[in-house]
């Protein structure tokens, strides 16, 4: 299970911006990657801060796209939401909720501490089937387009580091600490069994 065979997952809260950005980048670099949201529903910015657009995880990106175009095309073009949804629908059909996915991964990246909490909580609550390990790593990324881009590259860099390791389980502690020092970001890391 060395190198490019790593099964990666990127999780943010709505599986729209940060996780999808990373999903795209990793995908391009040939990683086996999937992306998820950890929230109960998918939230997109609305006309004002307190009026977000809320969808459930069954709504496809395409549906959201058309919905928003109908609502306020200029607004959602301007704030880049439409562009983002457009990108997303090219990657996959619809957002996925982490809690509904029982596939196995080797490394799960989370984009926010809250998401990390939700993920490890979920994983801890599951009953493991074959006790295969998964590393859960959190990199804090603010939920905006620019940060998402930067964050995606950080995740890529980290994924490359991890994939180059011959014995990930043994090296990961050190890799992460080096990465923390280099990127001047603090990471969270845990292990879970699935």
């Amino acid at each position: 299970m060395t190198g490019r065979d790593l099964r990666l997952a990127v999780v943010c809260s709505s599986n729209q911006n940060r996780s999808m950005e990373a999903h795209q980048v990793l995908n391009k670099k040939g990683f086996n990657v999937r992306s998820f949201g950890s929230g109960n529903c998918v939230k997109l910015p609305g006309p004002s801060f307190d009026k977000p657009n809320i969808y459930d995880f069954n709504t496809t990106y395409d549906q959201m796209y058309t919905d928003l175009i109908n609502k306020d095309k200029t607004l959602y073009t301007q704030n880049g939401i439409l562009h983002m949804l457009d990108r997303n629908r090219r990657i996959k059909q619809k957002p996925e909720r982490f809690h509904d996915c029982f596939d196995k991964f080797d490394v799960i990246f989370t984009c926010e501490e809250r998401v990390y909490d939700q993920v490890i909580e979920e994983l801890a609550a599951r009953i493991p089937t074959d006790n295969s390990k998964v590393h859960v790593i959190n990199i804090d990324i603010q939920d905006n387009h620019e940060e998402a881009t930067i964050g995606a590259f950080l995740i890529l860099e980290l994924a490359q580091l991890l994939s180059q390791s011959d014995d990930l389980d043994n090296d990961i502690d050190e890799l992460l600490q080096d990465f923390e020092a280099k990127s001047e970001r603090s990471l969270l890391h845990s292990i879970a069994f699935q």
Partner: protein
Amino acid sequence: MVDTLTEQTIDRVVELLNDAILASTDKDKVNNLRQVQELVIHNDLVDNFLDEILGFQNDALVEVRKFVVNFIEAACSKDAEFFPKLIVNLHFALNDSSPHVVKKGIHVSTLLYPKFLKWASKVKVDEILESTHEVWCNIKRYIFNLLDSSENDGVRTQCIKFMEMIVICQTKRDQWSNTDDFSLDSMENCKLVNLEQLEEEANYVFEQLLIFHGTPHISSLNLMATMQSLVILARQRSDRYLSKVIQALESLHANLPPTLAKSQVTSVRKQLKVQLTLLLKHPAAATNIQFQTQIIQLLNDLGAGQSEVYKCLQEVRKRGLKVEQANIEPKPKKIKLEPDAESSTREKLEPVLPLPSPKVTRNDANTAIDITSEDLISCLNNIANVCDLVLVSLLSLPDSMPAHFLATYTPVAAAGTPSQIKHLARLLSTQFTTTGIGKGVEEMVERAAISAKAKKSQNSEQQYQKIATLVSRGIAQEAKKQEQAQLNNQNKVKLMPTGKTLSGSVKVKQLNFEELTTELSDDMKVRMIADSVSRIIQAEERKLITCPSQLESRNKVLTHLSTEFHDHSFNVATLVRGYAFEDIRNRADLLFNLVYNEYAVAKKNGNDMSHYDNCLSFIFKELIERVDVRDRDHFLPRFFYEVPLLTPEVISQLEGMITRETSYSGITLGFSILQTLIEKKIKLRPQLLSVMLNLSILMDKPEVRAQAIKVIKYLHEIYGADVKGPIERFSLEKLQRLLDPCPIPEEPETQWTEDVIKIFLLPYLCLLPNNHKLIHDLALVYVSTIPDIKRVILRVLDVPVKGMGMDSPELLLLVETCPKGAETLVTRIIHVLTDKQPPSADLVSRVRDLYHKRVPDVRFLIPVLNGLSKREVIAALPKLIKLNQLVVKEVFNRLLGTQVESGQNYQSPLTAADLLVALHNIDPSKCDMKTVMKAISLCFAEKHIYTDEVLAIVMQLLMEQSPLPTLLMRTVIQSLSLHPRLLGFVMNILQRLILKQVWNQKKVWEGFIKCCQRTKPQSFQVLLQLPAPQLRTVFRNSPDFKPALQEHVSSFTDTQRSHLPQSILDAIFSDDGDVKEEIPQLENNEPECDGQSNSPSSSVLSQPALIPPVSIINTNVNIATVTTTNGASAMET
């Protein structure tokens, strides 16, 4: 049809296998092999190709070897019958050089073991199954060992998971367990294995996990993995493990591994929080208030808000209702389970398991934490303690808040509530226990020691029982059995790893120690011992030892070693002692340990104190001679006071130190030690006391003697008969020595010098103020000793007698019963007593009695003069003034009170004037005039007492007497010469003397003339008042008066002259021939004066004086000489 299909498949498989062998990349190989696996397993062809496939286990490529492990899993899962065939290969995989294969191997083992158990519980037990089980046992053991021995994080993580599985599989379910998992419940009718044995193994494995969880240098990944496993176990087997797991998590929270990086700490805390939340939601925790509060407290500490906790609790409550009823029954089971498990273990499984080591386990540590925290709760309830803690910790507070603290800090919820205090106590206690201090640790260590002992005895007992049963079975049966066993061994299937080219497994050769080793030579042994000890000693320098408990145990080791090798090598003890003395300040404890251990050993060896004595002597020798003075001053007393037993050798060392020591402080130290020892060590008191006493008469060491005397005096004052007795006996004995002809009986030529005498006297004298009775012994000795010693005794009596005081009944008794020959002594004593204060009535009466009844020596009276009545004093005066001039002076001092310090209320029986008057009135028959004159002049010497006023009074008093005292005029002249101011008063006196017909008393008359001579010209007026005959006598005695008086009268006016009677004028202006007429008059008076001077009859006056002028001149000269000798200055005015 089927056959052809199978054949096709077989062909395909063969082809694939060949491809796989030829393939160069791991991907291709694995791809081919995967296809083979698919085909083989789906078509039940495993048996056909088993060897071929397993042959790949020796492939150079890791992925291929991993595949083989996967294949084993697939095959065994498909059909458990493959276990016997594949199990050895699985075991083999665990020994692989690549960690990936090992991990896979463990992973597969984790998956297969439950399957194996399931299978094993169903099939018939035969040899093959047993052998398979045996290999499983080896695998288990191997993996358990890996947890500690592997360097690879991932491998360890897999081990943890494996162990978790073992615990789940080998324990019974409880009511909350997941029923899907395999568990011991499904093995009820298994013949292969002993269920209790398995359960015990599970407990052991759980313990191991707990221990691993608490390892201080665990990596964050392992830690989180273990944490999760423990929580899974706690949830699945809550009855057994929940409480222990909560404890473990709690102690983890209090003691996060120090090696974790900052972000790792955050991760671990998060994980901890998640796991605790899971536990909180577990019904077993929900139904136990204690667990619940414990968990909630921890969660609060980890930053979980009230709402979060509340949410959890809500969730639990929703499920809770149905849960609670089910809960009631199985509860007592939990209590029963543990002892059961424990007791069953030891009996039934000897070989299978590595027995838990007897050292303190995690479990014990938890108990220790419990005990310590109980202990701490009470401490924390004391406000003062809490304040102290806060104040102390303020000192180590950093200036600014560290970032990670800020990040993780949550305000303490419910501070000060009992539950919070309890929690805090637990946190503290966890830390205490980790450092190895606290009540709990002590108790557990004790318990561990006891249980280790018990276990030992138990084991031997079991063995004994076993032997007994064996014997009872009968020999025949036994023989038969043995035969069978032999057969069994021969027939026993030896499972071999499947596969073609297996490298032989390493055979373990049984070690036979006796064969392998030869005994070391004694030299070698000694050297090795010495080397090891010095290595232990050096451990401190190398900073290997950090925590106090380690240091303590090291000291213990050193101590025991040093007593262990007495008979073999002296190096050890000397080494250790030498080491301790290098830095005695920090290593004094080690020395104490040594001493105590030696003592214990000596006690054990039937009170053979020689080693103890040696050790102690060495230590004291070092302390006294080598150690720096300051350290010596500190440690020497400590050692003396605290060692278990002081041997005579050591006491003599102390004595030697005092004797040899030259510095004052050293001597003082020695004495303070000796004194304290006398006071504290009751048993040794006689020896110690005699040392002290001997020091008090040590020749050539005045300083030592002085200190010894001081201490002896103190001891004598404070303590009872057991101390007083020997001291008194000793000092009396020394006192008696004064009766010997020489101070040292062995050397007859030595002399009693003053110093020697004092040395023998001092111990005795210092006791006198405390025990007055002793004084009588002194008197006895005094009487019979030589004069030299007497003198010394008299001289040294001062202080002790003053210390006794004059009210001492014993002293009074001595005065009363003064032995013959001791009068000087008694006098001296009385003197000393009254030296600075007036004598008491008691004393006075005793002395008076003595004086009157037994020893009429007036000197007795001197000290008590002031206590006598005026009459008595005056009566004694003649005798007194006859004494030595100095004594007389002393007497006067006493009478006049000059020696008494001012401020004391002092009443002399005689006033100064009284004294002088009394002196004048002394009967000449009792005392000659010369002595009286000396005495009087002594009075005049006291100018500050005999002022002009006093003298005037004296003269007045004397003059009023009749007859006039002989020495009156002498005193008048002397007074006048001392105080010229008295001139007028003297003139007055002279005139009044004329009225008293002074010429009737010859001496006085002579004095009168002399006085007139001295006081001319003022005396002319007086002379003129004399009757003419007397005037003529004056002229005759001192002819120079006549011309002077003629001149004086010539200067008178006529009127003045007319007042003079003619006879006077005639006398003045007459011829010198008149003088001769008067001579016989004077001659006549002389004898009367000698016979009864105090009562000259008036008839004498008319008788002609017959004394020749020469004698008069003689007397005059006499007076003059006396006065000049007494006070030249006084006469010159």
